[in-house]
């Protein structure tokens, strides 16, 4: 039933296909390129050559094959997306559950802290955090996770607040179930759909923001074939070497698009209250 409904939703199906393909590329990427030397070794004589049969996406300023680098870049992009979302969930979901279910000073304080995090655009805060950590993908991920968890906390908080007034929670409380038990065994499964939707869209969003950090020079480090970094490096070779900017950017676009479409589709199925178009 669910599968049927999903498969009728063309954009969502397209999203699923894209996400599956990206996953495949990320896992089996090395089979699609001729070897690490194409990705990492410089070949100064062949630098900045336009797309050709041999190098379908051209070569970069060190003579490395852009196609190979875009393919291998998928892995770190996905890793960032999934890693950031997982870490944000790990922080945000328990906090949201706690703050939503109990009504103590602690929950009030926690929610005010999320207010502080949400008071500045995420990118600005992540930029500041990434700047103080040592450079590298891990730091960028940490910076993103540290600034993205309030989104999960808020989602869970809202849902739990909503559910708390339901009859079944009151019934459980009446039966003497412990708050922990109610929260984890009964509330959590009920807010799971909201978390899954947020997470799917969050992966795309995290990839986008991580690429922006990479572009600003505080994410992935050379010679990593990071997409954002590649675009940053391409700028000084524009407009002649346009392929340096075009292909990594398309890769980001398609990946994020896939996750967004999938997230939309999931929302339709998992959350019938909301209309598909939102």
């Amino acid at each position: 039933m669910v599968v049927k409904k999903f498969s009728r939703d063309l954009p969502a199906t397209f999203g699923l296909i894209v996400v599956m393909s990206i996953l495949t590329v990320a896992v089996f990427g090395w089979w699609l390129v001729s070897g690490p030397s194409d990705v990492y070794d410089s070949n100064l004589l062949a630098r900045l050559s336009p797309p050709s049969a041999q190098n379908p996406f051209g070569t970069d300023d060190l003579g490395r094959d852009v196609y190979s680098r875009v393919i291998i870049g998928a892995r770190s992009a996905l890793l960032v997306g999934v890693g950031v979302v997982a870490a944000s969930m790990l922080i945000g979901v328990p906090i949201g559950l706690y703050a939503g279910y109990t009504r103590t000073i602690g929950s009030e304080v926690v929610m005010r802290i999320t207010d502080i995090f949400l008071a500045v655009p995420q990118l600005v805060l992540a930029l500041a955090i990434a700047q103080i950590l040592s450079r590298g993908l891990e730091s960028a991920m940490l910076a993103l996770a540290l600034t993205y968890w309030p989104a999960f906390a808020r989602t869970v908080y809202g849902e739990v607040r909503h559910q708390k007034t339901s009859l079944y929670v009151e019934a459980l409380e009446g039966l003497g179930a412990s708050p922990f038990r109610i929260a984890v065994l009964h509330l959590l499964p009920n807010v799971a759909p909201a978390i899954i939707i947020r997470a799917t869209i969050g992966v795309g969003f995290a990839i986008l923001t991580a690429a922006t950090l990479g572009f600003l020079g505080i994410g992935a480090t050379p010679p990593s074939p990071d997409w954002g970094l590649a675009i940053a490096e391409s700028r000084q070779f524009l407009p002649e070497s346009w392929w340096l900017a075009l292909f990594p950017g398309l890769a980001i676009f398609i990946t994020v698009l896939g996750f967004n479409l999938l997230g939309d589709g999931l929302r339709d199925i998992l959350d019938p209250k909301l209309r598909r178009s939102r």
Partner: protein
Amino acid sequence: MKHVGVYRSLALALAIAVSSVQFANAEQKNEMVWGELLPETLDPHLASHSQMQFYMLNTYDGLYRYEGNPPQVVPWLATAHEVSQDGKTWTFKLRKDVQFHDGTVLDSSDVVYSFRRLLAMGRGPASAFSSYLKPENISAPDNETVRFVLNERYAPFLSALPLVSIVNEGLLSSHQVGNDWGAAWLSSNEAGSGAYALDTKTYRPLEAMDVHRFAEHFHGWSDNPRPIETVRVRPSKETSTSVLVLLKGAIDATDSFLPPDQVKRVEADEGLRVSKDESMRILVIRMNNKKPPFDNVNFRKCLSYAFNYDGYIAAILQGYAVRNPGPIPQNLWGAPKDLEGYTFDMSKAKEFCDRAKAEGAPIDRKLKLFAPSEHVQMAQTGQVLQAETRKLGLDIEIIPATFPSLAGSMGTPESTPDMWVHWVSTYFADPENWIGQMYDSRYHGTWKASSWYENAQVDEILGKARSALSQEDRRSLYEEASRIIVKDAADIWVYNTIQLRGINKRVNNFHFTPVGAGGELRWMSLGQ
């Protein structure tokens, strides 16, 4: 009553509007648009980097000035100087005919004030003097004489003098707040006597600066009959955009960091040319000599042989750099002419790495190379080393970081990274600016001495060179020190820069000098 005010301000607005329209329409004036980067502040005593040099050279004057390439120190506000027998007391005679932009006459008290202000602020250019000059030892015996008594003999003193702009004491005192030496005001105003004067009304920090010719400049204008009246400085952060603006004819020159890949494109345009000048700015890959495996001289030699110097210069820099085998720019005195240095030789590299390994150096660990992210060249340099050393089984990771955060981590050998890449530019054209401050252990803890090289013999030679007064003696001392340091492979010295600047052909008399990268506007004129 109220209405009158409104009408008056309306009329005023209209008048301003009309005048600004006229201003914009009065084309084909003797005006130039210059694409140089602007300094963060306009206070010439706060910084001495290239952006500041550009500003200083045009709006201020110093006692001496660098002209030509290779740069010579020529008398500017000073006419002559005397040095006492012990080499500590320096007496300067000043010109009498110098006017500041506000019309007041520049005399010795302005000079004393400027040096004291510089030392009191303790920033940027002050560091070239603070170790041997105390404010109370600067005096003015009369209106046109200034006397400096140094704590110790310091030969490069004269070479460092062009770093100091002489500011207008009266003007600054009138804008002093608390005891700030007029710093708040001077950060966006100007108090100089230079050939061009700042237009404060149109100045926008880091964005736009206009300067107008100062007709009463002491040097006179007889050697430039058709000087440029107004220069509008409009920086572009990204080079690819500034090239485009140059091609469109909207600016007359880019900054001096034109990427080699853009040279052909600029030269393809009939009306443009590229000025290619060998500067004194060396690129160095620093190695932390105190951290294993870099404490092993054979390992350092291995890396020195594993860098593809010629390939890098020929392919990536398109030949626009000169191989510089040692720590002094090869076009400056003190650099040994016969210095061989290291060449790209993978079999030798392997040999030395094997030797280092046999001696127990941990060469298999991950080596971190930091590259300042302000210039793409830094990471490129690292990647060239990385690509070759991969074949030796070495694992180098390149980490971009901003220059301030990097420079801030050089306080101890432990916090200093394994390797990092940077330029050492000309702040003053004396070997002391390079070898002296890079390899004398008394500078340990500063970013310039970040290889933590320690050699008592070198310390002694450099100390002697600092205090010897004859240039011939100093030359041989610096040559000797260079040879020792190169033999020890303290760092990897890559090249001396050829600075590239795209210029519209209508700009005549562009003279390059390593200090200020040729941005001295007073010599230029516009013609077809």
